[in-house]
């Protein structure tokens, strides 16, 4: 457990978090290692867990019927994968596939949510970190959607 606490507190997402909260978060966490081509989650899976990438690269992709996968975004060291635990119906709406060997911290969403509801200080500290990341991703994804480069479809 101690090792996991250390790993949790060392992740950029938790920068500045009081050390006493380390074990609290680690209580909802697990250390995972995913090989290239392996999936962290599939579209439709229950969104029980999200991931903090420590090392490697994860592609978020959607597989339209009868077509190649459309990779929408890649997340690497320091990034978070999975915001679907926040949105009903709490199911992954895309696949999350490791492009290269990836080490990540998996966080149990229900476990964490319960701890945040009972400890507002922890809740605030975590939300304070999540929100800017999601907002930034939203702004960035919007720019991707605008298709600014304007070249004709291949």
């Amino acid at each position, binding site marked *: 457990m101690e090792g996991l606490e250390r790993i949790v507190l060392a992740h950029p997402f938790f920068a500045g978090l009081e050390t006493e909260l380390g074990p609290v978060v680690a209580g909802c966490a697990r250390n995972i290692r995913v090989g290239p081509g392996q999936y962290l989650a599939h579209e439709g899976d229950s969104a029980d867990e999200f991931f903090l990438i420590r090392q490697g690269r994860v592609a978020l992709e959607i597989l339209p019927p009868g077509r190649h996968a*459309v*990779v929408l975004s890649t997340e690497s060291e320091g990034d978070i994968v999975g915001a679907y635990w926040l949105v009903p119906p709490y199911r992954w709406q895309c696949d999350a596939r490791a492009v290269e060997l990836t080490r990540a911290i998996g966080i149990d969403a229900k476990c964490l949510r319960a701890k945040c509801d009972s400890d507002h200080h922890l809740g605030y500290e975590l939300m304070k970190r999540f929100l800017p990341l999601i907002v930034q991703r939203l702004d960035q994804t919007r720019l991707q959607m605008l*298709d600014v480069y304007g070249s004709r479809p291949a």
Partner: protein
Amino acid sequence: MSVALSAGTSVSGQAWSRIGAIDPFVPQIYRVSRVWRESSDIVTLAIVPTAGDRPEFAPGQFNMLYVFGVGEVAISMSGDPAVPGSFVHTVRSVGAVSGAVAALEAGATLGVRGPFGSAWPIELAEGSDVVFAAGGLGLAPLRPAIYQVLARRERYGRVVLLYGTRTPTDILFRRELERWRRRLDIDLFVTVDHADETWHGDVGVVTKLIGRGGFDPPNTIAMVCGPELMMRFTGTALHAAGLRSEQIYLSMERNMKCAIGLCGHCQFGPTFVCVDGPVMRYDRIVDFLAVREI
């Protein structure tokens, strides 16, 4: 003859005539010496003068290319200023004239007026970290600047190239990028808006790459080129990363006609892109990028 240009300044048509350079009103005849097909609608041409030497140019400048019977279009240089003999231009076919330029074959002739316009701040950036941020076809007008910085690599701190484009098939100058990637003295990040599972690189908007760092914001010069919308958001993102507006340079594009500050076609706010640009410092134009009908 060589004319040194300091960053963000240029020489008007009248001044060119006075210093005895090539007459800016009269096209010189050039011949296409080589054509590279970059994609379905983008072509790179090397063109050589039929008489005399090709003039010196500074990275960031453009020529007016004239296709006989069709018309004239402004295209930035995309080649290495240190390589004599030819101008290199990368052109996307979007209209009648650019389409005609892109369709030229080796041996065809065309008219050339130039070089015109302001230059990337290569000398000014010495001693600093350099960030090149390219979007789509914007990598082409930046390429001469990248060549020049790499040719004098010891004069600069960290050098970073951030390149975003629509999909992996739209990546320009792939072989060159691979060569640069193999160097240890330039950090290269390429991203695409979307891809299929065969792409193992980054997917996401180019501004996301700024977070990778590798440069010291207070001591960095950024050179940005791409569609205006991309440059607008990249400027904002670089600013948010700690660069002041005076440290950021963009290359503006507007429809050019005379290229020498007379006709007003390329007007952008109070500036004429052909003589006050195309390379402009961000602080001077940021307000006009925000204006909604310009």
